[in-house]
């Protein structure tokens, strides 16, 4: 079963491991036909398409789990939602065929909205020139130190609309752009101080830029 869920409001402060645990416990409370791993300490099988950084909201996040028996999507959804708190509700459920590739493997991009507290007009003005650059180098911190990476090929699209910066960013094994980095690089380009900013991931998309749940 593929489940689309939200992680909004104060729930944006929950870390990824904590969210995994919270969802596993919710599935257990709901008494759904979940599967467990083999072995001495069996754990509930549940995988997430993409972890979300602490502080960022998710409007349509995706997780998947194998069930031990088939179940109508609507029944699954209503039983899970009966035990989930507001702001962390399941929005859709899709039964998957056994052949379906895991969501994590199909993931290619994600769309975001960024609502900065100030500088939006200046950022809008700087955006076309920012995107026109051939390369946008930035320092990426990794386990083995810092190295320079190019952000530009990972930014598929960005625009300012309805008081927010909307961005379509790569999120794949070969390269991932973080929305915080986009904002930081854009501010640096425009000579602005980094504003406080509420970020929401609005969709997880596959290679066709179609939401993962639309198989």
């Amino acid at each position, binding site marked *: 079963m593929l489940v689309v869920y939200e992680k909004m409001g104060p*729930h944006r*402060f929950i870390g990824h491991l*904590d969210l995994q645990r919270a969802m596993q*416990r*919710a599935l257990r409370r709901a008494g759904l036909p979940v599967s*467990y791993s083999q072995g001495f300490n069996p754990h*509930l099988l549940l995988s997430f398409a993409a972890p979300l950084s*602490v502080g960022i909201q998710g409007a349509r996040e995706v997780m998947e789990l194998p069930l031990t028996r088939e179940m109508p999507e609507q029944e699954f959804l209503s039983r899970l939602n009966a035990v989930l708190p507001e702001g962390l509700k399941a929005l859709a459920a899709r039964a998957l065929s056994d052949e379906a590739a895991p969501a994590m493997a199909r993931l290619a991009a994600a769309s975001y909205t960024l609502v900065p507290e100030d500088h939006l007009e200046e950022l809008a003005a700087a955006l076309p020139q920012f995107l026109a650059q051939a390369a946008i180098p930035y320092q990426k911190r990794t386990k083995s130190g810092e190295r320079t990476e190019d952000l530009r090929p990972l930014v598929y699209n960005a625009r300012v609309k309805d008081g927010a910066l909307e961005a379509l960013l790569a999120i794949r094994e070969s390269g991932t752009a973080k929305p915080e980095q986009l904002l930081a690089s854009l501010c640096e380009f425009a000579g602005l101080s980094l504003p406080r900013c509420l970020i929401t991931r609005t969709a997880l998309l596959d290679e066709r830029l179609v939401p993962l749940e639309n198989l």
Partner: protein
Amino acid sequence: MSRRLEALLETVQRPARYTGGEVNAIQKDWAGRTTFCFAFPDTYEVAMSHLGMKVLYEAVNREDDLLCERAMMPWVDLLEGLKREGIPLFSLESRRALSDFDAVGFTLQYEMSYTNILTMLELGGIALRGAERGEEAPFVIAGGPCAFNPEPLAPFIDAFLLGDGETATSEMLRVIGGGRKQGLKREDILRKLAGVAGVYVPALYEPTYHEDGTLAAFTPLAPEVKTPVRKRMELDLDAAAFPEKTPLPFTEAVHDRIVLEIMRGCTRGCRFCQAGMLYRPVRERSPEKLLELAKGLFAATGYEEMSLSSLSTGDYSRLLELIGSLNACFQDSRVSLSLPSLRIDNQLQEALTDTAKVKKSGLTLAPEAGSQRLRDVINKGVTEEDLVRSVTEAFENGWSNVKLYFMIGLPTETDEDLLGIADLAKKVVACYFALPREKRAKGLKVVVSASTFVPKPFTPFQWAAQDSLDEIRRKQALLREALKIRGVTFNWHDPETSFLEACFARGDRRMADVLFRAYELGCRLDGWNEHFIYAAWLQAFADTGVDPAFYANRERGKKELLPWELADIGVTRGYLWREHERAQKGHITPDCRLGCEGCGLRRFEGVCLP
């Protein structure tokens, strides 16, 4: 959530500790209700591991006219942020300042959390001293094991509850809420609180001292005040409040699982153990009730693990029956049962392997002392044969990790007793190698931990001196050398914390000045090594002219009035002194289930075992 708070939370570590809104958290409307904030003087992870908070949260919220919310000690980053931004410390449910509540209640689990209480009061906008609180200020109440020696906190706490809080907390809240509705003055409400069974109101007593610094008397300042204050007891645990739905932390707590309190109290009578005296008499919950509670808690939380809680789980009279019914009930939903491995005997082992539900995390044993002589002194009814049998069985059953807990600085201890710890460790290692190679699990690991003994009130050792810091350090060094054994790791702690614990555990009201001064000097989160500043505490003693050795390292006389003797815990002074004398002679006292030892609980009709 206010924009300022939200912005602040974006900058701190693990912000989910402060957002509330957990599954099963209870948010009630404030209109017309008496409001109570349960304040835990340590971080969220510690607080959410604590069963007592969950019990009282349920017990108070169950009452329609009352509400209970939670607040915890923020970590340093948020603490400094709150100060900088001028945001008061708030409850997790309604995010109101602590000062908005009718009452704020602290649980006193260990002495090193006392500076956190002062920190939380100040951050919450409440005057630190009871005498400085106005008519609008909340009543600050406290309970828990350390409330049995309330004096070091006397100026800061309006009323202490001694003993079980399931029904008494609501009674106290009704006196406070009812008094406020009637327009009573603060001091009148305090007097009424003193009339609630089990409640000690320190402002209504005045201690006086002899020239040598020892306590002369506690003089009651109001006619309705009782001395001593007898502790509260919930005699029927099946009827007592127990959480049916516990708030489920989003961010992992230290102990994050279903906890079933199967029994309260202990009959073994170890002479160092304060809990064993404070929580008498022994009371059991029935397996039927526990199964019902466990089912409800699983349905409400989805937890993966369940543990049984008591002072001595092996003594629960229907343990096998309980384990069997829990395992049968939870096999399909994959809830693993974790048991303290302290007293795993063969019979129990069989019951466990039947369902293979116990994780082989390691065997933990607490001989507490290295020689039979000293184990007799402390009345720890464990012999070397018991130990050898337990570890051999454990090794035969596939364990290879053993933890051994000891205390150093016990009364009458000699170097010979200490070296006995190393002998025991060697014997455990020998038990492992005595098994044929193919029968034992690989990777023997024996961990010996030695904590520093802290004499506690209401124990037969309440008169004893704690070893000086230098003596403890010498003993630790001796053990370090003696425990250089292959397969054995030795753990010990710096003794300074235990020294301060000893000062507060048996302190009087003058220790409150030291506490306040240490707080002024920046002490907080003293239970966290990285934040403990011993030099500041020494400065606080020097500045207030209080001698810490008077509290920690002085042997008390038989006739001395002790600061905690304002409380009656059921166990009498006569029994404790008798046990104290038997200890000096190395005479053991059997488990009182085998025959009454006259501890004093039988003074109260129907309280103790028949």
